[in-house]
């Protein structure tokens, strides 16, 4: 019996050794034969190139070679997804800062509110409003998906309650600034059914942004804030059903896909959009070619730019300046019937003088539209407002 067990032990070791040797040989050959990739769509970054062997005796070559071999490893994206799946099978509900929620929802781990930065930002907005009393100033803050779709969160997921945090921030602003906490509108909309009988989806399942339906719900709640007495009618179009956003990439979770919708005003207002960094002009706020790429959210204005100028045929005598992050990209197209000119400024990339914009465009209204996740750690807005 003992001899049989010893023989089985030897047999097991032999099989494991052969298996390991075979695995090394196959992986070595596969990596050798697979051509290097220059870019990873899944990670949205360039992949390391093969280091030169002539440098192999220099300091740092080992790390460079390691990075190259890992970046170019055969079936890299598939194996990363396997790791994510294995973690979930083992009960993990957080992968790389993303909570794995119910019904296919992924949630970004909330950003902690920095009290020093947010106080500085609030003071900057207040000062801006005080220095420009003729301008109609409004602030719209958007909470994260975790604050709106709590029922889809994994049980006990640590979240920070951004609805209350947004209220606290808005209370720091003077009465002259019109304020909207987008939480209520989004929560209300998320409980409503669409014409097809499905639940209104106000945040993407696979991306940290709100959907256009969510943006539209907040737009409807903000009409009084924005002095829009007679809102236009809109037609809703689904332009994609294959969107997998930032959270899907971050968590290497490819299970869900999202639909991307756009709202076109039924009025015959026309737009011309000028991009300062691209040095181009377009006849639409949308860039349909972005739907062929990984980040389909860029269908709205092609992503973020230092500044964007939108000229319309609305003929309302109003001009709007929007300080924004990327959440405004799907909201601003709804505003084109109400302003002759809309200037978008993203302070994270904009370094010019804001006062010059106010005077040269004859701005009548100013809007600050941010997600709380961005604003809670932001310093650029306060810097831009000077």
């Amino acid at each position, binding site marked *: 019996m003992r001899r049989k067990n010893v023989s089985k032990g030897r047999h097991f070791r032999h099989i494991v*050794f052969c298996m390991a040797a075979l695995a090394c040989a196959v992986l070595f050959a596969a990596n050798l034969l697979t051509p290097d990739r220059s870019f990873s769509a899944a990670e949205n970054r360039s992949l390391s190139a093969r280091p030169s062997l002539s440098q192999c005796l220099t300091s740092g070559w080992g790390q460079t070679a390691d990075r190259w*071999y890992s970046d170019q490893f055969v079936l890299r994206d598939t194996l990363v997804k396997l790791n994510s799946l294995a973690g979930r099978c083992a009960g993990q509900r957080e992968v790389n800062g993303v909570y794995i929620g119910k019904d296919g929802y992924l949630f970004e781990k909330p950003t902690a509110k920095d009290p020093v930065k947010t106080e500085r930002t609030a003071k900057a907005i207040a000062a801006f409003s005080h220095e420009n009393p003729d301008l109609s100033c409004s602030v719209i803050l958007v909470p994260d998906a975790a604050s709106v779709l709590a029922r889809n969160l994994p049980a006990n997921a*640590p979240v920070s309650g951004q609805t209350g945090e947004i209220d606290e921030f808005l209370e720091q602003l003077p009465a002259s600034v019109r304020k909207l906490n987008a939480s209520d509108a989004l929560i209300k909309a998320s409980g409503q059914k669409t014409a097809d009988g499905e639940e209104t989806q106000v945040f993407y399942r696979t991306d940290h942004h709100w959907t256009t339906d969510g943006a539209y719900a907040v737009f409807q709640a903000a009409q009084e804030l924005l002095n829009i007495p007679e809102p236009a009618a809109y037609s809703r179009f689904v332009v994609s059903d294959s969107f997998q956003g930032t959270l899907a990439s971050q968590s290497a979770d490819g299970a869900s896909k999202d639909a991307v919708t756009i709202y076109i005003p039924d009025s015959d207002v026309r737009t011309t959009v000028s991009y300062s960094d691209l040095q181009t002009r377009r006849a639409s706020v949308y860039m349909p070619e972005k739907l062929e790429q990984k980040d389909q959210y860029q269908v709205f204005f092609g992503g973020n730019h230092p500044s964007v100028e939108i000229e319309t045929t609305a003929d309302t005598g109003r001009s709007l300046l929007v300080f924004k992050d990327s959440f405004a990209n799907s909201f601003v197209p709804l505003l084109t019937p109400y302003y002759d000119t809309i200037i978008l400024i993203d302070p994270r990339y904009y370094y010019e003088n804001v006062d010059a914009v106010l005077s040269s465009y004859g701005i009548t209204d100013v809007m600050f539209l941010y997600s709380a996740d961005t604003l809670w750690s932001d310093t650029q807005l306060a810097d831009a407002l000077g």
Partner: protein
Amino acid sequence: MSFVSLLFLVVFLPASVLLARLIPERFRNTFLLLVSLLFYAWSAGRNLPVLLGEMVFTYFAARELQRRRARGDTGTLSFCLLADTVLLAAVLAVYKYSGLPLPAGISFFTFSALSCLFDVGRGKADAEKNPVSLWLYLAFFPKVLMGPIAQYADMLPQMDSHPVSAASLERGTLRFLAGLFKKVLLADAFGDAFRQIHALPQMASMTAVLGTVFYGLQLYYDFSGYSDMAIGAASMFGFRLPRNFDHPYTAGSASDFWRRWHITLGAWFRDYVYIPLGGSRAGKARLVLNLAVVWLLTGIWHGNTVNFVLWGLWWGIIVILEKLVLARFLDKLSGVLRCALVNLAAFSGWIFFFSPTPGDCLHWWGQIFGAAGAGFWNSQTTWYLTGNLILLAAGIAACGTIPARLVSRIRKCRGRSGVWILAGLTALLLLLSVARILSSTYQTFLYAAF
């Protein structure tokens, strides 16, 4: 480059093993030395001159000690040994305390160098005439970065003859894989869980306790996993390295714990510090002094902040009290209770490890006793516990002999089916390990639309 880099696992190690088998035996040590230096250069980069310097110094210093011993010149022998020790210790101290980047593995290869000088100085072993053999002992890549600290006298006979048999190759592979699984699948996962808790601004008592447990398990599986990989890799080249861990979290006393945790470091201090100072044979007062010295040095060896000194003193006090006072009380307790007390001491001690300063230690202890005002248990505690329950269960179970008994039970299945089941499980764990290593290099740059 490290043991858990894919370039090492798929290319460097298999190629080294294969080439070592093909190269004639008389050139094998030279080949292994070159491979080891290449490994160190690719891991530690610009600190290779430090290792080279200690290699050269140790060779000539050992030869000189041998000459003086042969002449019967014990007075100058002792002086030379002392001077050599002070010099090597000074190099270690300069790097630890000056703020200069610490060369990878310096604590380990310096202790190997000191082992060589002590063994030669005391006549326990001869100074190696062949510099390649001595340098290979110091720089051998499986053990150069994180041990085990093999003593010179034990390794010397192997330097001349270390045949590689099919058994040593297969055993080595199995040991290496076991270490890889411990490091990648357990230690890294516990590390992620600990870092999430450690980043919390405040936490409930049980969250802090959970974090401490995660850290203690991460440390064990990381270090013991690496040691297994080192022992396994060495075996592939025909070398036998000493065991470094023996289920320490099943220990029944503090002394027993330190006979099971980082065994080779404990043996080093025992053979080169404790016993030469008189050990336990020079009266109680001297015993206390000897233990205090050993534990102070152990703490200093582990790190360059006061926290590590405090950690060394923590264990020193516990071991001294156990030997002098507590032993007869502990003997009356059940094995489970003794084990629980030892683990309480061990995990409490690890708080010194992950806290940068004594103040941070106190802050963490405050969290454990509810100073954060977040209660005993809250939803965060449930989150971190339920999200890591399977990991925790596996980690605790694997601290003892459950995995070995399970493997043995499966292997005994009728015919060869048990063997194939185990082989399949091993293949799955290997696949998951590769997947996890790749995931650790996965970094998404969120789109500009952020």
